[in-house]
């Protein structure tokens, strides 16, 4: 077993293996931004509070500032950019735009990845479950309502795509602006 100050790692980032030498105290976030150049992963608080650095690490949504880069050797990381071809992520991105869930945009990459992870595990969450799902991600602009609206809308669109939708039930679960958008989009307006 080697004891190293500089650690050679090979981490798959959005499908591409990136080899680099990291310092023992570097976080996965440091590696992603400075070495893998995945600058869609934002650095907010750098201490695990804000969630804007959220990525899918080893299959789970985590805050990349709370993972040691050296620990991530051999692991797979997906950031927002790596999920852009994913239909669920595209629905979420469209819904964020439709619902005005983006203001300054700094929390948005982490919000999208956390929301995507939530809907992967629970395709039909309640608004309470959505609030819990993004509770590790801080947004200082929107007050969260529009973000929850957007997740509701994306979830509803996906249920419709699955062919299991009951539109009346869906409309009941949506709220405010999302309900208006959903009526427009789902009931033939869009």
């Amino acid at each position, binding site marked *: *077993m*080697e*004891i*190293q*100050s500089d*650690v050679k790692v090979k981490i798959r980032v959005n499908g591409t293996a990136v080899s680099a030498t990291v*310092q*023992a*105290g570097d*976080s996965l976030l440091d590696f992603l931004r400075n070495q893998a150049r995945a600058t869609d992963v934002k650095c907010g608080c*750098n*201490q*695990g*509070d804000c*969630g804007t650095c*959220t990525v899918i690490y080893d299959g*789970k*949504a*985590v*805050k990349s*500032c*709370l*993972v*040691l880069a*050296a*620990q991530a050797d051999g692991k797979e990381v997906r950031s927002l950019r790596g999920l852009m071809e994913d239909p669920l992520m595209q629905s979420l991105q469209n819904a964020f735009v439709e619902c005005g869930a983006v203001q300054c945009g700094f929390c948005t990459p982490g919000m999208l990845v*956390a929301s995507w*992870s*939530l809907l992967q595990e629970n395709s039909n969450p309640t608004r309470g479950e959505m609030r*819990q*799902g993004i*509770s*590790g*991600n801080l947004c200082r602009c929107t007050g969260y309502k529009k973000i929850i609206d957007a997740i509701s809308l994306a979830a509803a669109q996906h249920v419709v795509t699955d062919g299991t939708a009951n539109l009346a039930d869906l409309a009941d679960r949506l709220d405010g602006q999302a309900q208006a958008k959903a009526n427009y989009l789902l009931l033939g307006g869009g």
Partner: protein
Amino acid sequence: MLHYSFCKPGHLIEALQVLSEYGGRARIAAGCSNLLPDLKARHLQDCLLVDISELEGLRGIQAEGDWATVGSLTTIAELAVSPLLREGAPLLWQACQSFGDPLVRNRATLGGNLGHASPAADTAPPLLAMEASVATESLSGGRREFPIAELFAGPGRTNLRPGELILSLRFPLFQGKHEAFVKFGLRDAMAISLASAALSLRLHDGLMQDVRLAYGSLAATPFRATRTEECLTGMPFNEETLSLASAQAQGEVRPITDVRASSSYRRQLAGALLRQAARAALS
């Protein structure tokens, strides 16, 4: 100039060897939800980061009869989705539902939450109330098992011996008790608890028995409020009992004043959380 180094032992013995050799200069890296903020804030001097996150045999929940053994590398998220814990150890399960946030729960480990020895550690009051035991191992001292109440020495300090690693936690399942975990923070997620309480009890002929009450954030360590437990034992569940026990609890806790709350506010929380927990447990 701060200097950190890193190693990743391939198996338990190798980990214990390096912990023994480096003593206090070794820092265990598992979920890293406390370690990385400490590194970035430069709270840690030169140290060796020992990555144990992939050591075999320290992860998972095993049931044997009415006892569960949980490996120290089991994540809070894994505990939070365990049907066995939901049915068999609802106190711990409840604490895991509200622990940190979903992203932190995917990384934070049970052993890390306890080994970090924060007075606010959310898993500590349930494990104290359940009278869990901690299994540890070190190179020189071998394996030992002791009650979790003996683990905590002070804020951020444990009674673990140099080079000792927490292997697992063991506690009884399906106790059939009335139980509830409640906590109070300044927001619902990602808030360090101002106070937390875990309460379990039985009712025999309308009287409370086998009462266990443990508090977090209300003293230098998470602790069992044994005098308040005695105050509840043998009493009926009513307003008068709760008033007496709340007053007792407020005298028994030893909270500090910090940026989050004053000690007198926390003292009041001790009584309020006891009432909340009792109502939730018996509802």
